[in-house]
């Protein structure tokens, strides 16, 4: 009996299959891709990837492929492809600029899922890290959920048992950038009662496993558990600090839950901006400072729903005396920090160099502080120096000092 050959089309959507044929190799996206910025290697660019994957489909599915090439895509070829695919930070910039409107972020994600299910699998660090940890602990980090709030939840803040406003920090904020979660709960607390899940019920959102490791099989159990846990707390509006958690909540949870979510999931900054508008939150301390704001990828170019660009700016403009200037690339075309979707773990060099580029761009605005609102951006910007710089970012040294990095909620919490 012959083994059934791997089907490269199965599980892709019609749109994705069409998109593979739509790329004109116009090379526009190469000018914007953060990975290109620090590697200068067109072989790992979006058009090269699209061309390769389309080639696998043609090789296995068309008459031409069957006549002129071997039936099976070689393992070496797939390994190369996998390297290229996981060098991408899933920032979605290529899709935003694509001259034929390819929604690349979803496409890369789907293709990752396929490659993870193929003989080459996903990168080992992601398999051994977030995925195995999740199976054991329901968290991407190797720590018990019971301790999830311990290092950052402030003693002087009170959490209601049940409330209409809920808060979900996300594992990244809890363990990697806890200042962010602390800032958020202080602000929410100032505005009124809010509630959170019991720490042992506060599972991972699924992003590191689904996007990083390409593993979707955990999602149904996860989405069911989480939606139920939030509903049990009586939550109507859920503030989410990590933009990637929010993105996957909007994109995949409803599907895997099998219904619309029974609460409104929104970014913490969105909820806070609403609260400022409703007059429940006010910043009294004036600041004499110039800041710039970095739009995290998952807010600037989300999978689903509108980009979240205005609320953080609204919040900053509500602070008396604050001057906000935009970076050259901001909003929908903001520069990626290089940390997401496994990049930091799989390609630490690329990741840090991208962060240096972003840091330089922020510094060039002349601002005193760069604010962001994502645990990964925050972490990656703050630790950008931990690997050897690529020659193309050598100039970063000139910018190294005198730019403070902070999270927007932590920053605002100090101004209450």
């Amino acid at each position: 009996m012959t083994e059934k050959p791997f089907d490269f089309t199965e599980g892709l959507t019609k749109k994705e299959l069409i998109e593979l044929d739509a790329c004109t190799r116009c090379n526009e996206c190469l000018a914007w891709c953060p990975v290109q910025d620090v590697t200068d290697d067109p072989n790992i660019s979006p058009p090269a990837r699209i061309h390769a994957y389309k080639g696998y489909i043609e090789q296995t599915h068309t008459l031409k492929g069957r006549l002129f090439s071997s039936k099976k895509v070689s393992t070496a070829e797939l390994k190369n492809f996998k390297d290229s695919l996981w060098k991408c930070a899933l920032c979605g910039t290529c899709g935003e600029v694509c001259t034929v409107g390819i929604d690349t972020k979803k496409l890369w994600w789907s293709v990752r899922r396929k490659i993870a299910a193929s003989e080459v699998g996903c990168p080992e660090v992601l398999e051994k890290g977030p995925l195995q940890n999740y199976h054991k602990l329901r968290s991407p980090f190797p720590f018990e959920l019971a301790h999830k709030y311990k290092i950052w939840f402030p003693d002087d803040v009170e959490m209601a048992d049940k409330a209409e406003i809920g808060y979900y920090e996300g594992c990244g904020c809890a363990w990697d950038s806890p200042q962010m979660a602390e800032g958020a709960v202080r602000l929410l607390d100032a505005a009124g009662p809010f509630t959170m899940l019991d720490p042992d019920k506060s599972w991972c959102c699924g992003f590191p496993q689904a996007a990083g490791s390409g593993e979707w099989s955990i999602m149904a159990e996860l989405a069911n558990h989480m939606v139920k846990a939030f509903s049990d707390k009586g939550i109507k509006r859920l503030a989410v600090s990590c933009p990637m958690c929010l993105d996957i909540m909007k994109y995949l949870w409803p599907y895997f839950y099998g219904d619309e979510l029974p609460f409104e999931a929104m970014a913490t900054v969105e909820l806070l901006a609403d609260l400022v508008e409703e007059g429940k939150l006010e910043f009294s301390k004036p600041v004499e400072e110039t800041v710039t704001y970095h739009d995290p990828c998952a807010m600037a170019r989300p999978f689903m729903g509108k980009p979240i660009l205005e609320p953080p700016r609204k919040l900053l403009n509500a602070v008396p005396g604050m001057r906000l200037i935009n970076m050259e690339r901001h909003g929908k075309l903001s520069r990626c920090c290089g940390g997401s979707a496994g990049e930091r773990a799989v390609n630490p060099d690329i990741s840090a160099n991208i962060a240096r580029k972003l840091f330089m761009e922020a510094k060039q605005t002349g601002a005193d502080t760069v604010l962001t609102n994502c645990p990964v951006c925050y972490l990656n910007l703050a630790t950008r120096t931990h690997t050897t710089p690529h020659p193309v970012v050598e100039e970063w040294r000139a910018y190294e000092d005198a730019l403070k990095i902070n999270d927007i909620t932590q920053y605002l919490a100090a101004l209450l």
Partner: protein
Amino acid sequence: MAVEFWNIPDGLIKVFYAFAGLTVIIFVLGFWGKIRIWSKGMDADQELKGMGPAGLVWLSIIKFFSSDCIFAKRVFPRSVIRGLMLMGIMWGFTILFLGTAGRSLNYYIVQFLEGGIWLLFSLILDTAGFLLLVGIGFGLYRKYIGKPERMVKNAQDGILLGLLFLVVISGFLVEGIRIAVLNPPAADWSPVGFVCGTMIKALAGTEALKSLYVVVWAIHFLFAFSFIAYIPFSKYEHIFAAQISNYLFQEKWKKKEIPRDWVFQEEIAQRRQARQNAAHPQPENKTT
């Protein structure tokens, strides 16, 4: 007005028909291969829900004429000059393609290209050819001279673009030689052809031109058919696909996906059922 086959030996005309037939067969096979793969995809987008091959072909045709495509709406924000280039190529190619079809219709079925209409028709086709030439010229320039900083290299792309360039050039030469030899009264309604004709007239005598004509004519149809046959096997298949990706991208921020019909469906349904049962417990079945 059977100008198509002026001065072409019968044997060559037979070859022409054979090539035309072969081109159509290869093109249709290639195109069908693509459509078949697309229709294997899962339903996740409302706009494509339940569409089979026929629906996808239809969508591809109607969306070809969407403003996104004919006004290169997604290219202009990135670069005005490339937007113009694309419009030149797209309008040029489309008009020439439809024009050639119209000419065959006129020749074989109903004669409608006469008098003023014929003159206008000539002018439009000539202009379209010119737009196409300028567009491709810029495409070649961008590929080999004023290159973007980073570029994916692919020999096939260059060869095909060059091929298309030669199709247009040889087309103008064919027209030019014919004008040079026949001196038709309304040649100035084909300005580019007229200019070519005037230049060619100065170069060679009528007999030499007549034999050159056969060669250039053969090159023209050979290259044109090769290009068309190659479309579904090269990046030029974007001609069928790019209008659909453009169309769906517009909906990106607004839309919700419809549930995908795939492996997890069963698990999702089970959990949903369990949830509903818990929310509305069924009274225990009493057996009578």
